[in-house]
């Protein structure tokens, strides 16, 4: 399978969020989340400046059959603005922490976006017609003096240029004291949850003034605090089940049928620490930065600092698979701790069939692991190597011993270039990689040749 993941780069000039190639970027341009919708037709990114950019996949054109699959900007809007909490004297950043699409139910698309505190529901809809021929209102929309209207005129819909409208539909505020790290839409399509460092709340999508607290791990005394919630997600089709991960490397599966407040988990997934790898940083590197249910709902994928793990919902005492993302960093933990990289939160993703997993690393590298063949590959998202339609070459990090041509040594990895956010198309082998302020979209070569 993995040998077919020779990826093609779509036309990155249309996908780059930079105004100019190699132009300097500001902090606000850094992409902070990437998410495909349920069909894969749309792809949304959020950035530190509070903006959301939606890309749409172009339909196949008759003249150029190879064009299929390119994503172009569909809509851009400002989702969050910097705010100030006067009660607590705190600035609230506009950075978009997560975006989640709602399953499509009519012509419009809906998505949830969140910053540290406030979740917003957005409606994305198209308009290509407008009514013309009103005679009750003047050009500026003001009601005319009705005595001057002498005839009844029925407005008609006239075609116009396609317009994408994005409007805020709900604002879910004031429910989180700590930073929201995850949102997840339930399979019932009516509720969603939002998780912060210490609590998880359950919301109805239509109700903004009320939410139910379903997990609360805040101790009575904050001095006793040793663990925080790092991510949370609903089961893909059992609407009563959800999982949350912690900074101590544990996963807790909760069943909302058991009680209103799920403080008692149904299952606890935890792997005993390997004493041979023990160091000062053991706890920090075991902190889970992301958790994802497989599409089948049978497995869980977790990312910690050095590994990705696949857990079977039916086995709590250890993961069924563990993949090393960049084990060569194990000897450099002290430096990574010093420069704060050890606190980086890498995400992870499943492919459409749950057979391949993907996660990011440093130096603009990202890794893919084939679960069946146990093969893995390191690829690089860079402007140099990803000219449109070029095939990505696997990269190799040299860890002592003989160094081959094109290998890169651990010492020359650039730790400021990190791929934290990645997304995989729900059905096809198309992946989206956020590298600082650039979005790369790679596509399986075989796939595009077939079309």
């Amino acid at each position, binding site marked *: 399978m993995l040998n077919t993941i020779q990826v093609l780069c779509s036309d990155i000039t249309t996908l780059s969020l930079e105004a100019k190639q190699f132009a300097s970027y500001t902090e606000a341009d850094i992409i902070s989340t990437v998410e495909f919708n349920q069909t894969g037709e749309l792809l949304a990114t959020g950035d530190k400046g509070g903006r959301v950019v939606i890309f749409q996949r172009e339909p196949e054109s008759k003249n150029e059959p190879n064009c299929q699959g390119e994503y172009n900007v569909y809509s851009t809007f400002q989702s969050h603005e910097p705010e100030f909490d006067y009660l607590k004297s705190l600035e609230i950043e506009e950075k978009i922490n997560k975006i989640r699409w709602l399953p499509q139910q009519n012509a419009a698309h809906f998505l949830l976006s969140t910053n540290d505190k406030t979740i917003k529901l957005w409606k994305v809809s198209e308009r290509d017609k407008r009514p013309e021929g009103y005679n009750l209102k003047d050009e500026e929309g003001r009601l005319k003096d009705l005595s001057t209207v002498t005839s009844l005129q029925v407005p008609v819909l006239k075609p116009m240029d396609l317009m994408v409208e994005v409007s805020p539909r709900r604002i879910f505020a004031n429910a989180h004291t700590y930073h929201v790290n995850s949102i997840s839409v339930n399979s019932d399509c009516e509720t969603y949850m939002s998780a912060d460092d*210490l609590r998880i709340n359950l919301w109805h999508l239509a109700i903004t003034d009320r939410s139910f607290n379903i997990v609360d791990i805040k101790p009575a005394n*904050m001095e006793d605090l040793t663990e925080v919630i790092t991510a949370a997600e609903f089961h893909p089709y059992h609407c009563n089940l959800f999982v949350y991960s912690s900074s101590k490397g544990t996963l807790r599966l909760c069943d909302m049928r058991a009680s209103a407040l799920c403080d008692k988990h149904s299952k606890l997934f935890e792997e005993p620490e390997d004493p041979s790898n023990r160091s000062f940083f053991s706890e920090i590197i075991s902190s889970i930065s992301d958790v994802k249910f497989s599409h089948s709902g049978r497995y869980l994928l977790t990312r910690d600092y050095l590994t990705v793990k696949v857990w079977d919902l039916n086995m709590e005492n250890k993961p069924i698979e563990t993949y090393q993302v960049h084990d060569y960093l194990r*000897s450099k933990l002290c430096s990574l701790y010093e420069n704060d990289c050890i606190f980086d939160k890498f995400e992870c993703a499943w492919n459409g069939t749950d057979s391949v997993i993907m996660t990011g690393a440093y130096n603009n590298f990202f890794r893919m692991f084939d679960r069946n063949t146990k093969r893995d590959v390191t690829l690089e998202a860079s402007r140099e190597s990803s000219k449109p339609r070029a095939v990505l070459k696997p990269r190799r990090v040299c860890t002592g011993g003989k160094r081959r041509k094109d290998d890169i040594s651990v*010492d*020359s*990895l650039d730790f400021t270039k990190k791929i934290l956010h990645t997304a995989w198309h729900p059905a096809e082998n198309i992946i989206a990689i956020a590298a600082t302020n650039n979005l790369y979209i790679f596509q399986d070569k075989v796939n595009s040749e077939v079309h």
Partner: protein
Amino acid sequence: MLSRGVKRKLEDDEEIMAAETSGAFDSSSSLPYPQQRQLVLNMCLSKLQSCHMKVEPSLHRSVLLANTLRQIQEEMRQEGGDLLLESPVYPNNSSVTDNTMSSSLCFSSSPSYENDGDEQPVDSRSSDSLFGSFEISNSTSYLTDLALDDIFEDIDTSMYDSSDFSTVMSFPVPRSPVSSSEDTMKSFPTCISPSSNGIQICITDLNDLDHIMEILFFGISQFSLT
């Protein structure tokens, strides 16, 4: 220090390989264990301290730092007796003086610290906002109601009595046998260089257990606004 290798040219490659195989790759691994631990401890403290400067620090990060600190703490406590004897060896230029230590102690233990007269606006502002947030939250004001000693009474600090400590320190301190120690310390400037505003948060010995726990407690209690 990671950036050290970034712009190497081809001819330097052999050098790199040599460094890799000799294991002098990561500076921490060349240090003896107690000093490694001390290094990590110092970084923990300075990171926690810098957390306080932020208006709303990441709770996740603070908890991870605090747990690491606790772990080292516990380890040092368990082997406390031995450690006093083989007290960590520091180069004479480690720039930690009684003065800076006492000022750092002052900083973290009393909100209305007045000392030395050379106070910096930055720090007083941060400590103000810190305590300001407590008032607003209107929750139990831990810091004023509780003596810090009580909170961590399970930790026996008596053996690290300051008088003992000072006698240990008054002996001329021999250079560490690891000749590279000075170099390696240099690569962690956050730990050994005096900070620009004069507050020195470098904690060099068990003597400062109390202080460590204060920082620890301090860092976490910032989040107690419900």
